[in-house]
């Protein structure tokens, strides 16, 4: 009998699950239902659309033609509820889609802080293509913009607006950038670059209200009563997994939709993957949310196999992101907690992992050579995390050492004293690791 699989959400988790199902079951009926009218695109690429390094049409990385050749149907619609007992989902326009197995891969949405005036025209978040288009449109006429929030998305917004020649003010509640993840020197490196990009950084300030004029943003009022004029306010204070559909269907949820190692939810025929899912971390035994493209792909692959009954437990690798913050290529791997307080983010942002705030039983050692910095978190016999800023030569070997939990006890003392020697030592830790 033909199995019928329905996937809610056309992001990397959903699309990769669909590909996986097709590989495992050539006869299956696979349908992806998503609420955006456009084909699959790169969400992280929106940052590069904003700063002008890539045109919009290049973002569509998995075409409808590719879906068709895989025999995957993409339909547009907003799912209004899941009815697990009837094995069907109901779309807002009244259609119902029957399933044998269902995947929830609806992602997360940007939070809007509860501030007076937050619904004014000109207050923007960056969730989807439509948002990026709106920001680009607004940037054409805006003279001044304010950006609030910590993490990667806030900086991408600030840099995108500055690149579009909008006078950009970056407002930080704390005293330094992304204090919960970066160490003080790393924050300083990033902030130095923002100044070079003509982004004005304000420390220790908080927005009290958004002031409008004829329904549009005209200024923000700060905690101390001062007024900063702006026609655009970009907000990136964190994300919230879209758990509502699952919760209303009676599935167990916490911050995200709870999953077991097979990415199965509390209903045996419903699975979850990507930003919406809360998955077990094999290292700590706790449930965590990641908001990373590679995690979404990995989970989509694992969930796709589980949906077909061919799954193996999802092995969550140490979270990795490589990104440009303040124009500096930065790799974040594993547990790296920066030691500072979380002032600008509710908890998790895009391109972010809850695990980065952790600092297992490890101490930090730093090699600083001006524009480049390397920070290693040394556990008793392995490296538990790393931040590589600037020169990326060591980022690949480190990815391997951390993810594979390679025993480094033989060189630990030397690394503790001279972390910069890692480059000379990698070959002793594994064959081929030092290769470029």
């Amino acid at each position, binding site marked *: 009998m033909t199995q019928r699989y329905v996937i809610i959400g056309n992001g990397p988790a959903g699309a990769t699950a669909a590909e996986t199902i097709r590989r495992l079951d050539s006869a299956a009926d696979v349908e992806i239902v998503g609420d955006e009218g456009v084909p699959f695109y790169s969400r992280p690429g929106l940052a*590069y659309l904003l700063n002008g390094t*890539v045109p919009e049409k290049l973002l569509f*990385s998995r075409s409808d033609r590719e879906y068709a050749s895989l025999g995957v149907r993409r339909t547009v619609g907003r799912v209004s509820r899941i009815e697990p007992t009837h094995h069907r989902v109901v779309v807002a326009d009244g259609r119902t889609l029957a399933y044998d197995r269902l995947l929830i891969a609806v992602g997360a949405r940007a939070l809007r802080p509860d501030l007076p005036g937050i619904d004014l025209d000109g207050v923007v978040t960056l969730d989807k293509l439509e948002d990026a288009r709106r920001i680009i449109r607004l940037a054409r006429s805006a003279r001044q913009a304010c950006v609030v929030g910590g993490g990667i998305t806030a900086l991408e917004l600030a840099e995108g607006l500055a690149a579009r020649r909008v006078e950009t003010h970056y407002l930080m509640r704390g005293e330094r950038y992304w204090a919960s993840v970066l160490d003080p020197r790393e924050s300083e490196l990033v902030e130095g670059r923002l100044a070079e990009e003509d982004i004005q950084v304000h420390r220790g300030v908080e927005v009290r209200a958004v002031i409008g004029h004829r329904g549009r943003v005209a200024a923000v009022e700060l905690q101390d009563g001062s007024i900063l004029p702006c026609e655009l306010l970009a907000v990136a204070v964190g994300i919230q997994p879209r758990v509502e559909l699952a919760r209303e269907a009676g599935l167990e949820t916490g911050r995200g939709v709870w999953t077991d190692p097979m990415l199965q939810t509390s209903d045996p025929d419903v699975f979850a993957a990507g930003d919406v899912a809360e998955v077990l971390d094999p290292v700590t035994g706790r449930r965590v949310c990641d908001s990373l493209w590679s995690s979404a792909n990995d989970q989509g692959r694992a969930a796709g196999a589980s949906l077909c009954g061919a799954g193996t437990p999802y092995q969550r690798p140490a979270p990795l992101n490589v990104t440009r913050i303040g124009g500096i290529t930065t790799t974040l791997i594993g547990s790296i907690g920066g030691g500072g307080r979380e002032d600008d983010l509710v908890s998790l942002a895009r391109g972010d992992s809850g695990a980065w705030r952790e600092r297992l039983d490890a101490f930090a050692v730093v090699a600083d050579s001006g524009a480049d910095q390397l920070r290693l978190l040394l556990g008793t016999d392995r490296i538990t995390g790393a931040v590589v800023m600037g020169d990326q030569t060591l980022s690949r070997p480190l990815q391997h050492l951390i993810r594979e939990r390679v025993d480094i006890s033989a060189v630990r003392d030397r690394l503790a004293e001279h972390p910069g020697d890692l480059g000379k030592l990698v070959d002793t830790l594994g064959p081929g690791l030092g*290769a470029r």
Partner: protein
Amino acid sequence: MRAMTRSANGGMLARLLHRDRRQREALVAALVVAEASRCVECGICTYNCPVGIDVRAHVRLGTPIADSHCLTCGSCVARCPRGTLRFEASSVFAPGPKASGG
């Protein structure tokens, strides 16, 4: 202050020369290899390829970029914001580590 500026410029020059040397080496005996787990499908590599290779598709599908048209010019390697792409010695021309592919 002046000394700092000079050393910063010196560093930049050294980096540029280093990149130039790497690029010339690559032209002789290298191919572009990818690590798919770093890719976020932004398309910057494809957009910047002077001969129109859909680099991103190669990365995602895990097929080698050793396309007969690839000039190994390094545009995609240099512009990828995620460090997905790198040069690797080609076994055709020189002994070296095997391409790990995507």
